[in-house]
């Protein structure tokens, strides 16, 4: 009889003891949210791991975070000994430096004790809004294609051609992102459009312009320079898996663009002419 009672107490105690406190759960959720935001904004793996770890360090001593280029696993052992873990897969990845900066700032404020978990969660939810309006971004695309044509030692006419090519690129990009096409589809068709647009321009509108400077300037927008830089920094930190992922991403993008441009030129010069 006595033994039974003791047993009951023991099991009861055990169920009570193996629980995660509210703070621990909140820390885990906030860390996962911050990590997912950073991965989808194109941050390096080590930066993502640092941020999630420093958030988790507020709730316990035994924690870890494992970030790949395509997802993350975050784990924490609660004070009572219960292991907690969340894993997330991140499918859509772009580049958004503002999100990286903002999440970094939020995590720092959280660690410094300036804000609590609730405020941090709120700020993480708000951070996703784009900083610049789409009108400004479209204008920027035009200016960018023109200035990169100039940069590649093109002249004024090349810049004008790049500017006009930018228009094609912007409309296609808008269409492709609206229907969530694959990056490879986007790049191949963008290459085709660039080839067609610049050939048309040099034949009928701007015969003074050089086709290579024009295309080079417009394609700068889609070239995977960002993945390339991130890949180097990832590999340097020892995150070879993420580094290789991004190098593969960059290579695929470059191949897609070149295939598009090559096909476009082939058809225009050998089949249609």
């Amino acid at each position, binding site marked *: 009889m006595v033994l039974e009672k003791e047993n009951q107490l023991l099991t009861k105690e055990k169920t009570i003891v193996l629980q995660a406190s509210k703070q621990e759960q909140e820390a885990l959720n906030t860390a996962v949210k911050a990590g997912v935001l950073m991965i989808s904004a194109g941050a390096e793996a080590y930066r993502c791991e*640092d941020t999630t770890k420093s958030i988790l360090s507020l709730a316990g001593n035994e924690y870890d975070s494992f970030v790949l280029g395509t997802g993350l696993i975050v784990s924490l052992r609660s004070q009572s000994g219960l292991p907690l873990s969340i894993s997330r897969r991140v499918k859509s990845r772009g580049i*958004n*430096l503002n999100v990286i900066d903002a999440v970094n700032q939020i995590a720092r404020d959280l*660690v410094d004790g300036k804000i609590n978990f609730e405020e941090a969660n709120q700020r993480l939810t708000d951070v996703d809004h784009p900083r610049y309006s789409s009108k400004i971004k479209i204008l920027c695309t035009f200016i960018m294609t023109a200035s990169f044509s100039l940069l590649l030692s093109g002249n004024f006419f090349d810049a004008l051609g790049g500017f006009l090519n930018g228009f094609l690129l912007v409309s296609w990009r808008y269409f492709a992102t609206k229907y969530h096409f694959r990056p490879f589809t986007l790049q191949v068709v963008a290459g085709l459009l660039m080839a067609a647009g610049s050939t048309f321009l040099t034949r009928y509108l701007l015969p003074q312009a050089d086709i290579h400077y024009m295309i080079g300037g417009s394609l700068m927008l889609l070239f995977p320079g960002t993945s390339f830089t991130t890949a180097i*920094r990832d590999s340097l930190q020892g995150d070879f898996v993420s580094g290789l992922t991004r190098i593969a991403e960059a290579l695929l993008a470059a191949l897609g663009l070149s*295939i598009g441009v090559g096909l476009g*030129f082939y058809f225009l010069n050998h089949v249609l002419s």
Partner: protein
Amino acid sequence: MDINFLFTLIIQTLAAFIGVYVTSIMVDAPKRTLFVSGLIGALGWGAYLLMRTSLSEALNVYLCSLGIAFAAQVVARVLKTPVTTILIPGFYALVPGVTLYRSLYFLIINDMENFNKYISLAGLTSGMIALGILTIDSFFNAMTRIQKINHINKQKREHGHADFVTDAPDWKNKKEI
């Protein structure tokens, strides 16, 4: 230095500034970094143009990327922002996208000589940029390591023990950016 070259230099440096500034907007960089990353990109491109006649391509790109990466690290510490936000736009002018495109164009029109020339140039440029970033990153990493270990040793000397040392960055003491 003849006047024609000077004119090209000014025009291209300006174009690099505008291009990098606008590209930072396209990748949603924070507003306070826009001007600085434009400046870094423009200065990097200007230096590349100036040294192009006297140095080999590989050394030139390496030196320029050293300068850009160093400036990005310093500025990121001053502006209290992740290094990525300045490093990515800063290299936009130097990344050999057009060389790569041109090499594949020559592949399509079956001009193997030019294809070999441009593809090796693209590989060389990107490799040298990688080496430049790697050098500066390792240098700054070593500096922060020295600071951190010195901090721990100082605590050990003064208090007999250090704070609980975790794997997480030491943000409370503002040691790492």
